[in-house]
């Protein structure tokens, strides 16, 4: 059975500490000027005394219908057998079409390879060794759950089947594989 790796970010558990951000940089040797993953602290939302911040994980959404893959003229951007949106640097000419096409703006040019770069769920390192991605392992509040959604007994499957979740920009039809458990705290716009 094919893999369908998904990631769940629980915005109630996240504290915005950026441990994931740092772990990702370290694991994947991401150059200092760029980043594959950041958790933006947005807000405050709500009204006094019910104020809260939102933790917005920004990284590749691993779209099941990926715009970057569709627009790439050479096929350098492709979906791997495991469903992970991948980059063949040897085929890439650096036209930036994929960077422009990504609705989440999570692709960037790696200054060392001159090719696009982004989160790949640590597929060549940790995932290949049967470990979880660096961000998932390092998270101190266990806000991240990762796994194969096609595996009926997987943790992600249980989480997504029992908790409400949302994905970003679903109206564009990209079918992102990063799911988010929304904050329980409310707040009408002032």
């Amino acid at each position, binding site marked *: 059975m094919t893999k369908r790796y998904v990631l769940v970010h629980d915005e109630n558990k996240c504290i915005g500490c950026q441990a994931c951000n740092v772990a990702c940089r370290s694991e994947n040797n991401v150059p200092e*000027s760029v980043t594959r993953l950041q958790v933006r602290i947005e807000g405050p939302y709500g009204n006094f005394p019910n104020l809260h911040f939102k933790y917005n994980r920004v990284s590749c959404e691993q779209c099941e219908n990926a715009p970057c893959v569709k627009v790439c003229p050479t096929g350098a951007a492709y979906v791997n057998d495991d469903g992970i949106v991948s980059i063949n640097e040897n085929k890439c*000419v650096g036209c930036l079409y994929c960077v422009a096409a990504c609705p989440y703006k999570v692709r960037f040019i790696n200054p060392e390879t*001159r090719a696009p770069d982004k989160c790949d769920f640590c597929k060549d390192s940790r995932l290949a060794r049967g470990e979880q991605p660096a961000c998932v392992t390092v998270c101190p509040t266990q806000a991240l759950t990762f796994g194969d959604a096609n595996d009926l007994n997987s943790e992600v499957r249980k989480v997504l089947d029992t908790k409400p979740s949302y994905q970003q920009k679903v109206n564009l039809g990209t079918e992102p594989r990063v799911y988010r458990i929304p904050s329980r705290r409310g707040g009408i716009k002032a």
Partner: protein
Amino acid sequence: MNNIWGSMEQYDPVVWNWIIAVYLFMAGLSAGSMLVAIGLKWYKKNRGLPTEGLPVIKAAAIVAPVSISLGMALLVLDLTKPFEFYHILLNYNLTSVMAWGVLALLVYIPLVFVFAALVFEKQVLKYAPWLAGILKVCRLLENSIHKLIFVLAIGVGAYTGFLLSALISYPILNTAILPALFLTSALSAGSAGNVLVATLFFSKEKSDCIDQVHRIEYPVAFNEALCLVLLFVGLNFSGPAAQGALSAITQGVWASVFWIGVVGLGLLVPVLSSIFAPKSWRHTKGFLITVSCSTILGVLALRHFVVYAGQSYIS
């Protein structure tokens, strides 16, 4: 970098810059110039008039190959890996509009050079007599070559629009109007480019066939204006993100570029000047040069506006 999550620099939604805008302009100029020249040739032919040595056609034989070559050079130099650009000629992903463009240009560019070589056959043979055989074959196929260039030029003009409209998260770009807008503005740039070069270098008599080229300028300008109206009215009815993008024409530097460059230089100056200018001016060199330069600048402004304002508003 004041955020604890790091620099936001790489998240700038404006990914493609002025080099792409100039390329889109150059491709449109080349395609438009070919469409106008070949259209004029057919127009004359149907009426039994001579088509050899027309200044506008000579001008197109210069404008089209030069602009597409400069445009391609810019495009290749803008790649992050310019020395590996050959991969784009070897690998084709047919869901990508850019791949369609590569395929069209791969045939279009050599044919435009063939067109130019046939127009300047004498001069070419003087410097490269070894081309005589090939040119003879091309001359026999001239009619088919013209038809093929005409179709490919429509393709090149329209694909630059589809290239941008495939970017689904930018409301201004992600519309079906864009290819039509690019094709009509390519026609205005092409006819103005042809008139400019013809007036500067090839025109002996005052009118020649510049008149006929002038005649298509009204409908083209009307179509361009119509496309712009449709684009922005359409945005107004396409949800909050698209409505937000309407401020592209009311706020900021790109609004000025739009009203002064696209509308003013590109549409109002050419149309008003041909309505109000005294008859004695109309075929003077100065007038033709001023008006065609104004049109060309207007189309250049349009490409910049679409590239920058288009990418500045993300849904």
